[in-house]
């Protein structure tokens, strides 16, 4: 018991860390949407594609869901330069997050596509819905309702996952804590503050997502 806490010195850094939190959100947001795009095409391919496409997507999903994101990031970061492709740390992490979460989101989104039954589309067609109307009134509400909760969870999970970017020198929340902890040696205090910030960010994100879900897709969910 020979450690003296000095919270004052750590709290001075809060504005700097908040800037990092903004980058974290930024990173997770871009990562999420690029992953969602990959996931969308992956799920489309897996539901409607030919046997070869299906097999390829299967392998992509199996590979990325069974290997750690950190090691794939190292592989991209140190491996690609050997082929003459140089990526900045930020781009490496974005690429890695997109590929990694694309694999998971392929799996998640496939569940949404499966939930639209053919009978419902036929019923809509019988009632004279045009394709656009079918999309608007049958397909999207269905998929949104099934997918909203798992995708929100995935987004929260990704906010936590982007802490990994710090290892490659991206100055997001954790990265900035690395910097300041190395300068001031107030590691325990700074990491505690960072942990608190992550909790605050994710709780806030949960509340916003639940609100959006209720308002836009009539998904009933609760945070706690």
């Amino acid at each position: 018991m020979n450690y003296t806490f000095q919270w004052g010195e750590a709290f001075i850094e809060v504005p700097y860390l908040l800037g990092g939190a903004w980058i974290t959100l930024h990173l997770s947001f871009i990562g999420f949407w690029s992953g969602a795009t990959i996931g969308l095409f992956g799920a489309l391919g897996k539901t409607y594609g030919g046997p070869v496409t299906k097999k390829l997507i299967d392998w992509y999903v199996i590979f990325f869901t069974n290997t750690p994101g950190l090691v794939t990031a190292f592989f991209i970061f140190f491996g690609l330069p050997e082929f003459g492709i140089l990526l900045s740390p930020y781009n490496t992490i974005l690429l890695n997050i997109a590929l990694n979460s694309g694999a998971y989101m392929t799996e998640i989104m496939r569940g949404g596509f499966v939930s639209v039954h053919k009978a419902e589309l036929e019923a809509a067609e019988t009632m004279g819905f045009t394709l656009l109307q079918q999309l608007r009134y049958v397909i999207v509400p269905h998929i949104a309702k099934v997918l909203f909760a798992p995708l929100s969870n995935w987004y929260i999970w990704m906010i936590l996952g982007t802490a990994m970017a710090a290892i490659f020198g991206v100055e997001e929340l954790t990265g900035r804590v690395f910097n300041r902890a190395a300068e001031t040696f107030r590691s325990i205090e700074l990491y505690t503050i960072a942990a608190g910030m992550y909790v605050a960010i994710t709780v806030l994100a949960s509340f916003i997502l639940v609100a959006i879900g209720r308002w836009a897709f009539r998904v009933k969910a609760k945070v706690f």
Partner: protein
Amino acid sequence: MFDVFLEQAAEFFIWDNAFFLFRAMMTTLFMTIVGCGLGFIFGMILIYLRKTPGLIFWPVRMTMIFYVEVFRRVPFLVLLFLVMFTVKGFGLDYSLFTIACISIVIISTAFIGEIIRGGLDSVHQTQWDTADAMNFSRLQTLCHVVLPQAWKVVLPPAFAFFVMFIKDTALTSQVGVLELTQAAKYYNNLGYSAILSFGTVLLLYFVLSYPMTRLGWWMEARLRDRRRDDDEVESGVTPYELRQT
């Protein structure tokens, strides 16, 4: 580029390295087993405390809820450093492996506790009431009535969490535990090509994780057949859950 690669491959794939990597792989596996195993036990205790009735136990319940909600929302990397600096800061001389295990236990207790709670909630309330009417104590109810039924609901997602955490332990390389990722970094620093070192380790993670994933699927399918009615369980890819009502 490829001639360098082939040249190094001849040097790289020798028995000494294979043995080293195998030990690193076992460290990864062992760390996960210890962490998640203890996490399972602590998670069980946590949920038992969380379900204690009575006004006096309100603070206990709140503490448990707080614990779960907080530690499910802290990144593993941050927690790892927090544990390391706290342990070292207070002058305790624990090994890096122990520190990694402590962090895994802290996180997995929260997640597995939540999974167990989902399982216990899947058992109908009448079962609790009946056991209560037959004068079972709370512990007896849990052990003899609820857990045997909840088991099938708890096991698949808990196992999925375990498999997921094999991959998350890669982050412990950042505090210096000699597991697979750290071994890859070691070889990369020795001068082997990143494709070779990190590629090999990627494959090793895959070898470790894929059979377990298959085992998890098999277990889930098998348990689902035996389950009586329609209660759906998501053994999801996302351990974090925004609960849908």
